[in-house]
């Protein structure tokens, strides 16, 4: 009990400090752009984070959520780059999907047109097979694919060259496969991860790579086997038993992170205030709960470190996309 009081007190102090510190972010009217229609992942990110920012008093007014769907985030990206690049009250929901679009030059401009604030959580990429598949480990699958790239038909929720596809190929590249062979691996695109898994259970494809969150029910029921989780370390909680790709010798991390960017011309002071505000949100128990409810693992990378992570990921995805011929 005592401990809880201490923690509550500490949190109150933190919040007080936060309210004082974030005058820039709270200045007039904080806004979050969700570059998608209501109901999707980016919309969820904006609405949950926006609600918690206000509830935790990190901003002193409710955060307005604006849906700006179009072209997998490019519409919002163009809008912010052209009209809102100096707006210190604006955050835009982003994820690995948008990052892949930038890597493949499908946004009007490169990552440096924006300032990247941080990721608050991530869904973990997994490589799956049916429970009765002959492939027992990621090594088995990679050995088979190296011998014959057509050994198994693979699929997931993105198109060829999309993030699910690239994550699988990153593993294959780590296993020593090169461009021409990577290109030969058959990839089938489905509307969502669970559709892909259902098709795999029906025997129509052999391997699925997608986010764990959407298909965790199939893993828990034992219908599918996870060959490798693409997380840096083993996942916490009920999925601690899943082997990572890293521990099997394939140094690949494929997190579908959820986070934010802001305009490229906001001042350093405003940038630091926003990063600080998001960090405080991340540290709250409320965010941990909200993230877990939606299948995300809380995961913080922020500020300069996040800028570097985004740039490196984009460089990796771009070189791989070039290698397999998705872009020139």
């Amino acid at each position: 009990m005592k401990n809880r009081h201490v923690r509550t007190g500490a949190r109150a102090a933190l919040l007080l400090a936060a309210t004082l510190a974030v005058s820039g972010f709270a200045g007039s009217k904080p806004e979050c752009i969700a570059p998608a229609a209501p109901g999707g992942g980016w919309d969820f990110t904006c609405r949950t984070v926006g609600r918690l920012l206000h509830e935790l008093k990190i901003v002193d007014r409710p955060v307005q959520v604006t849906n700006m769907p179009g072209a997998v985030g490019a519409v919002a990206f163009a809008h912010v780059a052209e009209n809102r690049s100096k707006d210190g009250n604006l955050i835009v929901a982003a994820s690995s999907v948008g990052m892949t679009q930038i890597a493949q030059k499908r946004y009007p401009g490169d990552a440096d047109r924006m300032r990247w604030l941080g990721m608050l959580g991530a869904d973990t990429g997994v490589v799956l097979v049916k429970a009765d598949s002959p492939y027992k480990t990621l090594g088995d699958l990679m050995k088979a694919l190296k011998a014959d790239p057509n050994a198994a038909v693979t699929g997931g929720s993105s198109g060829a060259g999309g993030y699910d596809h690239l994550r699988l190929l990153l593993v294959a590249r780590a296993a020593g496969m090169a461009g021409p062979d990577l290109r030969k691996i058959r990839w089938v695109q489905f509307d969502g991860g669970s559709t892909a898994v259902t098709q795999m259970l029906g025997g129509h494809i052999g391997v699925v790579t997608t986010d764990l969150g959407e298909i965790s029910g199939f893993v828990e029921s034992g219908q599918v086997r996870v060959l490798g989780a693409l997380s840096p370390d083993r996942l916490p909680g009920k999925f601690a038993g899943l082997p990572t790709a890293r521990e099997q010798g394939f140094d690949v991390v494929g997190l579908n992170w959820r986070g934010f960017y802001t305009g490229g011309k906001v001042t350093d002071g405003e940038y630091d205030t926003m990063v600080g505000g998001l960090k405080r949100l991340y540290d709250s128990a409320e965010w941990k709960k909200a993230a877990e409810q939606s299948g995300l693992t809380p995961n913080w990378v922020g500020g300069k470190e996040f800028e570097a992570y985004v740039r490196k990921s984009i460089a990796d995805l771009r070189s791989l996309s070039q290698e397999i011929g998705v872009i020139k």
Partner: protein
Amino acid sequence: MDILSSLGGGFGVALQPFNLVLALIGCFLGTVIGALPGIGPVNGIAILIPLAFSMKLAPVEAMILLTSVYYGTMFGGRISSILLNIPGDAPAVMTCLDGYPMALKGKAADALAISAISSFVGGTLATIGLTICAPLLAKAAIYFGPPEYFALFVLAVVAVGGVGGANPAKTLIAGMIGLVLSTVGLDPASGQPRFTFDSYELYDGIDFVVAAIGLFAISEFLMFLADKEGGQAKRLPVGQIRSSFRDLIFPAATLRASALGFVIGVLPGAGATMASFLGYTLEKKISDKDGTFGKGDPRGVAAPEAADNAAAGGNLVPMLTLGIPGSGATAIMLGMLVTLNIQPGPLLFERQPDLIWGLVAALYVSNFILLVLNIPLVGIFARLLTIPTRYLMPVVVVISYVGVYSISNSAFDLLLMTGFGILGFGMRKMGFSMIPLVLGMLLGGPMEQNLRRAMQASGGDWAILVQSPLSVGLHLATIAMVAAAIFYELRRRRAARPAVE
């Protein structure tokens, strides 16, 4: 009994006061829409989608509203068939044949009661069929891989095109326009933009709901503006029911037609219109021993009404379990579900049992509401037939624009909808049917995607399309449908010729 407990849970959703009110409103509006000549189920649902959006209804609430409208139109169509000799919507055409002669004999009230009862029986039996078949079909969906889905989509597109259109060439053209429009936007398989003209607004493709509201609601308004006459047809009086209750039910005719209608409804592509046509034809073959059909035989009213209501229920089976609409009306509902971020398909039963079973339970409820509404209140609906359209149409236009804007917050979509309204107007003036266009637009995307998935999986080997017995069977069914359509077309022309000359 897994199904019974799920259905019980569904009634818990359907009987919530707000959902009951929605069902009641839906049934009432549906009956009115069905009764008004010219506004059929497809137009009616297209007009009400923006209403559902601007009311910010949850998916299950929106579906309850729209399916009660859908069931309601099936009830309403018969009112104008019987009283005006003008079918309120396409499936009610057959009801004119014996319904109007009955009304001429002063038995309008009897005809209305008979048709209401057989509509109720047909609708309820089909809903029971849906309750049993849909979960089974959803389980069987695991056998459908990309080649099988491709075959199923081809079947749906071809069957609707072949059966639904009066003029095969125009049907084909409309269907092709729909297929072309479905390719606009980012190609899901490769992420490349197609036909977007470098406009980000077109990157996500043309929103189906925007197109449907333009094609149906806005073009309906333009048709009204262009129609200078606007005269009212002469309505026969309803009068009092003369027969005893026992003379109002025709169990054999109703049951036969219900079973037939349900099966036809489940088949992709064949909707209520075909069901009522075949239901009437079958009943005439079996029962017309004294040549009374066409002269006011009550069985000629009971059979097509049972069949078209049963088909409406049957139509929902492939829509909910496989994501394949069997008719124009279910196509529009499917488009709306997708806009609400609900992907109909086999996973819906596992993921959102509340939505599915709530909806199924709501169908039972609305059938009952419709029966109650339609027997005592039929006089009110009959009177509504005389409301001048000039008061109705402005409301439709306002709802359409407000609704579309509330879906997307995009002024571009308003322009797009207006454009589709003009396109629809032009096509209707030239005698094109809108249904093949809408289906092409809706089904073109998944049809293409499944073809490409099959190709991706096989490494470009076309043989994969005919490697499973299921896909071969589906392709054979497509061929049979086309053959049947040609056969009926030829027979219809042969039959129509003497009448014309």
